[in-house]
């Protein structure tokens, strides 16, 4: 205490300055209309800033619900878009319903578990049988690219066999020539941005940067972009070609997916079950 007093006494000029200067400032602000209004204004600016920053924070905290609603809206729009496209896709020979009754509808779902490092990767999504999801439905990425097939379904959740799985095989075609192939992942390759298209007939010419799309023979709608060819010279040792492609979607940042509901899936299955097994 005594030392404190000595300290204050030693620098009394400074402390007196602080005291008197503060009084001066207070007088200035309190008694002059202009300064007072300015002070109130700047205070308001500060308050406004605080509120604005709070708002940014709130926005950030609300990102989840906002994203959910956006995803749902996107799914709705995509469904409508597909319906519109289907009107003049009659020339492909697929009989489809009109505007209000498209073959495919999209259902948005959030990825709640994902892995990319394993040999067989499985994704869990937050929609289940209560939302109309059934096994073997196709799952695609919001932007471009395929994700996989629904594996198991519980009431509110579903597991998706990712493309990054040894059992996932998706029928794809080269966009230009409709040359069929099978999209697989992980033959001597652990890079989640790359996959292979196997069993392309040898007489087709595949160039670098050709786009690969889904064929529509699996439960995927036709024409969904999958990736671009990066290597055409993959040695196979059989009568078919293999090419390496770079996938459009990034599995490491997958947040939302669309589950494709195929209206005629059950019908198709039933019909095809009648075929004699070879």
């Amino acid at each position: 205490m005594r030392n404190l007093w000595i300290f204050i006494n030693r620098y009394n000029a400074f402390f007196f300055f602080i005291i008197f200067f503060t009084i001066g400032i207070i007088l200035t602000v309190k008694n002059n209309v202009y300064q007072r209004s300015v002070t109130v204004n700047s205070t308001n600016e500060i308050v406004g800033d605080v509120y604005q920053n709070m708002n940014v924070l709130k926005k950030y905290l609300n990102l989840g619900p906002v994203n959910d609603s956006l995803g749902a809206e996107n799914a709705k729009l995509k469904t409508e878009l597909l319906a519109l496209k289907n009107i003049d896709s009659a020339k492909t020979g697929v009989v489809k319903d009109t505007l209000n009754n498209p073959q495919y509808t999209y259902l948005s779902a959030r990825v709640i578990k994902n892995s990319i490092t394993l040999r067989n990767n499985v994704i869990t999504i937050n929609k289940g049988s209560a939302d109309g999801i059934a096994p073997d439905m196709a799952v695609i990425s919001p932007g471009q690219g395929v994700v996989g097939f629904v594996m198991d379904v519980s009431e509110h959740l579903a597991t998706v066999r990712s493309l990054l799985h040894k059992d996932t095989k998706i029928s794809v075609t080269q966009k230009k020539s409709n040359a069929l192939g099978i999209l697989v992942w992980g033959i001597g390759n652990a890079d989640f941005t790359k996959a292979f298209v196997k069993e392309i007939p040898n007489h087709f010419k595949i160039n670098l940067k050709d786009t690969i799309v889904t064929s529509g023979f699996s439960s995927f709608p036709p024409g969904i972009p999958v990736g671009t060819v990066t290597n055409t010279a993959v040695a196979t040792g059989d009568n078919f070609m293999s090419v390496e492609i770079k996938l459009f979607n990034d599995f490491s940042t997958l947040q939302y997916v669309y589950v494709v509901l195929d209206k005629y899936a059950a019908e198709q299955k039933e019909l095809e079950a009648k075929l004699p097994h070879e």
Partner: protein
Amino acid sequence: MNSRLVLINIVRWVVLLLIQILLLRNLSFYNLATPFVYILFLLLIPFGTPNLLLYLIAFITGLTLDAFYDTLGVHTAACVTLVFVRISFISLTMNRDGFDEPEPTLGNMGFKWFILYAFLCTISHHLVLFFLETFRLAEFSYTLLRCFFSAIFTLFSVILIEFVFYNRKMR
């Protein structure tokens, strides 16, 4: 501090404040330079005055000026700042134990010392004064310019007055 010094200071206070309020208040060059000669009084307060007394004198002087300028608090803060600079400068440049001269005038302290002393005090006083008066940073450069020219004007006036009295004392 003898009674003669006190009397001189009181007279100086009255005269300088009268000059400031009645004459210099109406004076301004292109709205840019306004002299504040009354700070000469604060500059010339005798050595050895206790700090608290110095601050009180500055506070009262500032308040008086504010009353006439209708700017309550602005001159007060500026004068208090000036006294702080004055105390710091004197404690840095002078021997603490005893002062040979009674008060820091031009004649007593020499031209160099007094110029530096007056300059530092004036510029600090004017900076606080003008920025408190403007109270916004938007007109920063203009305020700084006004402050600078006013400081030159004040300094010039202060040294002029000092020379007048310097000569009289030497006679």
